[in-house]
């Protein structure tokens, strides 16, 4: 069969698929794409299989390039459209929060434990060190920043946490989101350097927090500081630890890929970590909201803040331990 004859015979099918695909792409915002017009969806898959066959024939018979390219473009486009999946929606979000995230957290318990240790040990060590010799804070940060902390957590401040000027709760909400989620993403991405980046980021952030805590405790501002951080720490610190754990998991896959190739192990670990990162983002959004609108409220007595903090910690840990056990 000559190329021209082949083209004449099948032209109408190629044109039909092209226009069907164009129609589908035009309605990209609608959900239930394939169910909306069941008949046309069936037609697309039928045509797609046919045209795959045409492409195979055209290649086998070494038909002219323009013909093969045209069929290649068409099959590639149909392939993309047919296998495109929408996985958004409230249902998926609910399942992520109620089942997938706590499950993934338990599955990767050893990485979480390691990340928690790498974060907590520098926190405690630096905390104790700085408490006993406060001048050490200056080897962690500039004098200006230390003085800022002095001012922020002084018991006479109306709103604690940062130096507040005007209606700054919203500013700080935005600031915390940008800052804290950025830190978490760094803890995760550092995993690509054999996990070293994640370990360093965790240890540095732990040490920094520990130094500030030790310093402020020694200066007699324990009450304002701890009542400020206790509540949102339930979400923020756990989220940072989880982000670090996901990074360590990636690093571990690179260092010890097991029976897979290094790239394959890395890809599998990255894919599994994605669910943890979704959870981290949600937790940090909650943390930012609490930190901006609740933790900073200076008029709340510390006792109330500590009680709420206790409830938050219990529910976060309970959520991670209990949720998602039931079989689907």
């Amino acid at each position: 069969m000559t190329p021209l004859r082949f083209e004449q015979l099948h032209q109408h099918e190629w044109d039909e698929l092209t226009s069907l695909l164009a129609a589908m792409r035009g309605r990209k915002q609608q959900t239930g794409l394939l169910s909306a017009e069941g008949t046309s969806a069936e037609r697309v898959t039928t045509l797609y299989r046919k045209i795959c066959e045409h492409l195979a024939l055209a290649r086998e018979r070494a038909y002219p390039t323009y013909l093969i390219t045209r069929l290649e473009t068409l099959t590639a486009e149909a392939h993309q459209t047919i296998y495109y999946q929408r996985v958004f929606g409230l249902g998926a979000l609910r399942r992520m929060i109620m089942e997938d995230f706590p499950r993934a957290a338990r599955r990767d318990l050893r990485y979480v434990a390691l990340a928690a240790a790498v974060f907590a040990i520098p926190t405690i060590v630096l905390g104790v060190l700085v408490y006993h010799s406060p001048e050490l804070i200056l080897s962690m940060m500039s004098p200006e920043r230390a003085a800022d902390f002095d001012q922020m957590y002084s018991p006479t401040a109306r709103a604690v946490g940062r130096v507040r000027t005007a209606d700054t709760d919203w500013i700080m909400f935005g600031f915390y989101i940008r800052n804290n989620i950025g830190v978490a993403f760094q803890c995760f991405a550092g995993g690509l350097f054999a996990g070293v980046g994640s370990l360093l980021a965790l240890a540095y952030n732990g040490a920094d927090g520990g130094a500030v805590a030790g310093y402020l405790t020694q200066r007699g501002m324990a009450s304002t500081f701890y009542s400020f951080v206790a509540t949102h720490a339930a979400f923020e610190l756990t989220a940072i630890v989880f982000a670090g754990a996901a990074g360590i998991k990636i690093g571990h896959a690179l260092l010890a890929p097991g029976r897979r190739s290094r790239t394959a192990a890395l890809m599998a670990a990255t894919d599994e970590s994605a669910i943890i990162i979704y959870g981290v983002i949600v937790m940090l959004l909650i943390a930012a909201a609490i930190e901006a609108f609740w933790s900073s409220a200076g008029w709340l007595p510390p006792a109330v803040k500590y009680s709420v903090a206790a409830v938050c910690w219990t529910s976060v840990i309970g959520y991670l331990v209990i949720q998602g056990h039931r079989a689907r």
Partner: protein
Amino acid sequence: MTGEVLDTVVATETPEGIVLELRPAGLSVRFYAFLLDLVFRLVALNILAVPLSLMGGMGVGVLFIFAFLLEWLYPVAFELTRDGATPGKRVFKLKVVMDNGLPITPAASMARNLLRTADFMPFFYGFGIVSMLLRRDAKRLGDIAAGTLVVHEQPAAQRVPMTDVPPLAPAMPLPPRDQAAVIALAARASTLTSERLDELAALAASVSGDQGHRGPQVTRRVLGVAQWLLGHRA
């Protein structure tokens, strides 16, 4: 064949048994797309800043949130649309797909964009650039981990022009690869100078039974064979 060694095409097989060819996009075109996206993001942020700055503290807070979203989730949001590309990439006809040519999954898009931080190290995408230059498929670190590829969209097909050359039956039976070569020459004829076309046609002169000859007449006969092979008959 040296052509295969030099090319960067990545072949993947679909469940239908068809081999799709993906053409990975290199550093320079991705850099331009990145710059364009950067401009788009800055413009968006500045446009948002005008009304938001009039709203006091809350406006500034919302602006921070938008800055965060534009910084991290702008690529994710656009890669998960049907085009599979940010506006900058779309301008340069690039798209992000999975290694096997399937549309990018949300998890992969998230991973490749968050791991950007690692590519950015030690300064201005240092590791990312080194990785892209060293690899034949031009992946940055985030692409390797997420299993994604940035590819050129298929170029538009180039048709063989209908010329006034009369079709001519080949002087000998031609295997499919040779037929394709003659037709490909005809497809390129209009983009070549006549001297170069004569040279190339001389190489294929045996198909019209003109071995050892060259010149415009031979070229016409070779192109005639191409028309005949395409299916045109006098």
